[in-house]
């Protein structure tokens, strides 16, 4: 199981990479392995306001549609347009080309609520 140490994690299996005042968000390797066969991704709209802990995107596998929760609050300043044509990037490269959206952090204090790599590894029982 790949759990990079430079990222922060939500218990609901999203990862966050902090770049200045921006949070890049995706789903974890564990999440993509559980979902498998991702065939469709619905991203938040650009400029949308997302709230930590609330659903803001949807990932569809062959099996089911799953909500993706915003790990932090703020304005969506970029979305990964590639995923519209290549949703399988979430399976193939969840921490790289499979990034989902970027949020301009409203409250950096929220980052303290997220798990570090070792706590997330423990959380998923890996």
């Amino acid at each position: 199981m790949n759990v990079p140490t430079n990222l922060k994690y939500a218990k609901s299996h999203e990862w966050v990479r902090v770049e200045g005042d921006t949070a890049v968000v995706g789903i974890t390797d564990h999440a993509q392995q559980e979902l498998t066969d991702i065939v469709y991704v619905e991203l938040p709209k650009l400029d949308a306001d997302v709230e930590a802990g609330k659903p803001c995107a949807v990932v569809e596998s062959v099996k089911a549609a799953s909500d993706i929760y915003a790990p932090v609050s703020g304005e969506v300043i970029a979305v990964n347009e590639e995923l519209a044509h290549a949703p399988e990037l979430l399976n193939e490269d969840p921490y790289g080309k499979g990034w989902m959206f970027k949020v301009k952090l409203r409250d950096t204090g929220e980052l303290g609520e997220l798990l570090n790599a070792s706590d997330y590894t423990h959380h998923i029982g890996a």
Partner: protein
Amino acid sequence: MAVSTNSWRRTPLHAAHVEWGAKFVAFGGWEMPVQYSSIREEHLAVRERIGLFDVSHMGELIVSGFRAEAFLNRVLTNDVRRSQAGRAQYTFLCNERGGILDDLVLYWLEPMRFLLLVNAANTYRDFGWLTEQAAGTVRVENHSDEIATLALQGPLAPKLLPMAAGLGLFHIGAFDVAGFRCWIARTGYTGEDGFELFCASEDAPQLWDALLTCGAEFGIRPCGLGARDTLRMEMCYPLHGQDITAETTPLEAGLGRFIALDKGEFIGRSALVEQKEKGVSRKLVPFKMLPGLPPPRPHYPIIAGGQRVGEVTSGAPSPSLGVGIGLGYVATGTTQLEIEIRGKRFPATIEKKPLYKKPQ
């Protein structure tokens, strides 16, 4: 996602599924493998090569006796007399209103002995219904615990079971496989060539291992209920409890060819005759989404003429077709559909059965 599995029943192959890395799902009161590797890979293995499914959750009822044939012809919609010993027949168990209590395959094992392969969730109710209807005239037995059922499906299945390769479509016979006595039928729920094997529950783990070991050279994969669902959906085979229920009839489901209105009296006949004369007001239709649209799922609203006219009964991304597909009831004559997905409406096209056709 975390659901308690405490009260779910397990098949004799549960340990084998764990060993093969299955993910499990609740289905019809059972804890069953939904997938081992990936639904897509398992689905394509069945379309292109061969896959092995544990379907031991399904119920096996045995009806026997001198009057078994006449009894079954009175409780089932298809005409048993069009079948014969050594043959299988798809049929419905209907109530007086013509509503579908269950759909099943009737296997005529011996002149006075029939096996009914019924849906897992309906096993006890079917058993009770048949026992009540039989009123002592025939024996009705529930052998679901003693019989395990495996489905070996895919174009290479006859290579793995050469002893049964001579069986005609919808024929059944007794064979020895890896030293175990089985009833083998050339039937399935995937649209591919293949077999269903009925064996003693205690033999199932060794038979499962033998088939996967010997099937390795043909690229066999263990397959879960996820692939079983997408495979049957591509063929527009209905799933009881979703696409057909006690509130829908075989005519509404577009499966009138499995009711023999001319065979004499049977339960549900008069309601079905009346419905056929009047014409059905709604029909189960297969539909396809355009490429790039989100897949339909059960219970999504179906919109026609700007109005909500029904809901999706089955829906998923089709691994063979690469687009979303589904089934749902619409008013007879409906030609244009939209599916409402998370508050937005997307166009779908009504298609003919089956949605997937084997490339020639």
